């Protein structure tokens, strides 16, 4: 691939205390503008890999470059600017229960020190794009799981990140909603955002013909379109 790499892993290991390795000898590369699925059974290390990329967890060993920066040795003060360039849809959403939908979506912008007027405008735009403009004043716990998921996607996209990491972004959605959310993510990708989607939903991999990185027990067992051939065999 000619394009520059946004994420590079070289022999990355991640070992949580008292466990087997969650990631073992992971080597891979995600280029700018790519759309990549990360798949594998539960416990394979998908979430762990994403956490390493946005510095929520440190790698145990190996080299990990994000935007060309070696995050294995990143200084704490360099983490916030890095995270502002990354939008994350968390597997457990991580919405603030005591803040409204609009306030939740506004957090990444407030953290950047944007003026309240600009925050309000951008939040309104992104909420309309996920079809939640009427729920702006509601609290997350009063929404359905699928609606909460879309709030999480809206928050990840509101800052126009260079890199979007989505951890099971369709895990709670019915098929129609799944398509809607995936369309949002594809649209972001079309605008230039590099996308990594972790999912164990095979139908997703089959519907969207994209590069697939498969993990098992923390190891990269296939990369490229190999997954489809394996799944089909």
């Amino acid at each position, binding site marked *: 691939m000619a394009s520059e790499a946004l994420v590079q892993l070289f022999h990355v290991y991640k070992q949580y205390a008292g466990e087997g390795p969650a990631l073992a000898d992971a080597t891979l590369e995600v280029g700018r503008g790519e759309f990549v699925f990360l798949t594998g059974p539960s416990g394979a290390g998908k979430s762990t890999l994403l956490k390493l990329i946005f510095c929520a967890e440190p790698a145990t060993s190996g080299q990990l470059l994000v935007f060309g920066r070696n995050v294995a040795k990143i200084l704490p003060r360099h983490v*916030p600017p890095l*995270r502002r360039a990354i939008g994350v849809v968390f597997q457990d959403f991580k919405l603030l229960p005591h803040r409204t939908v609009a306030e939740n979506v506004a957090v*990444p912008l407030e953290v950047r*020190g944007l003026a309240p007027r600009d925050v309000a405008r951008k939040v309104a735009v992104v909420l309309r794009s996920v079809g939640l403009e009427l729920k702006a004043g509601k609290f997350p716990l009063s929404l359905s799981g699928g609606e909460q998921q879309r709030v999480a996607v809206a928050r990840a996209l509101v800052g126009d990140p260079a890199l979007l990491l989505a951890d099971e972004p369709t895990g709670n959605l019915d098929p129609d909603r799944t398509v809607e959310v995936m369309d949002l993510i594809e649209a972001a990708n079309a605008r230039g955002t590099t996308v990594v989607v972790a999912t164990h939903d095979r139908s997703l991999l089959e519907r969207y013909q994209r590069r697939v990185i498969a993990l098992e027990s923390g190891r990269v067992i296939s990369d490229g379109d190999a997954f489809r051939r394996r799944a089909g065999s």
Partner: protein
Amino acid sequence: MVLRPLSFVRRALEAMARGPFMTAVAVGTLFVALFTTGLFAAVLGGAERLLAAWAGDVQISVYLRPDADLPAAARAAAQLAGGREVQAVPPAEALRRLRASLGPEAAVLDGVSADVLPASVEVRAPGISLAQARALAARLQAVPGAADVDFGNAWLERVEVLLRRLRWAGLALFGVLALATAVLVSNTLRLGVYARRDEIEIMKLVGATDAWVEAPFLVEGVLQGLLGGALAVAALLGLHALLAPRLAAAVGVAAPLARAEVVPPALVLALVGGGAALGLAASALAVGRFLRKP
């Protein structure tokens, strides 16, 4: 990154409104410490001022031996007292004063000869401090024929010693209170930080700096300190309004008990400013420990 101080204040106020119980506990703790300290300072200050008002009337009597020469003693006293008002009191005058002070009971003195009372020299020293009065009394021992020097308000001396001890006790009390308050408030605020750990985690995950997370907590600490200090001042003023008139009536002097004397602007400033500083220190301690723990 642009820092928006107003947004920090807004976030601090929101947090306080969202956790009214925690806010009340923190403000209450600060209030108790500041009020106790303020009360102590006010009472001590008031007592000192009252003492000064009484001591202002200091009159030193030099009682003479029967064989002493009164005019000579008066001259010597005038010299020793450095130009203060000196009055020679012969026994007859002393008896007359005694009669006057006894009023209708004066009849018991009928037939008493003036000679039973000693002659004395009185030195009036308005507006001198107790320490000065004591020094002057000591010098007046040198008056020829002096049997005894008495500056009347001997009990004031004991009060002064007591006050001095109280001032030390007050200082120690304040030190202990400030420390205890800082720890207590910091623990309370730590609960508040802990209650908002999810929020802090999420903010950091979407790119907030430590400073951005920390700022509202510091603002909150300062606001709570200001509030605690203001409440302490209000309580002191209320207490003063309640007690000062009665106290003034009881001791017969009102001026030293005026509000501006007992709760002077400096004390108000110290309580409110001290509250803010205490709140800031406590919240910095609380949130700093939380953010910088691994």
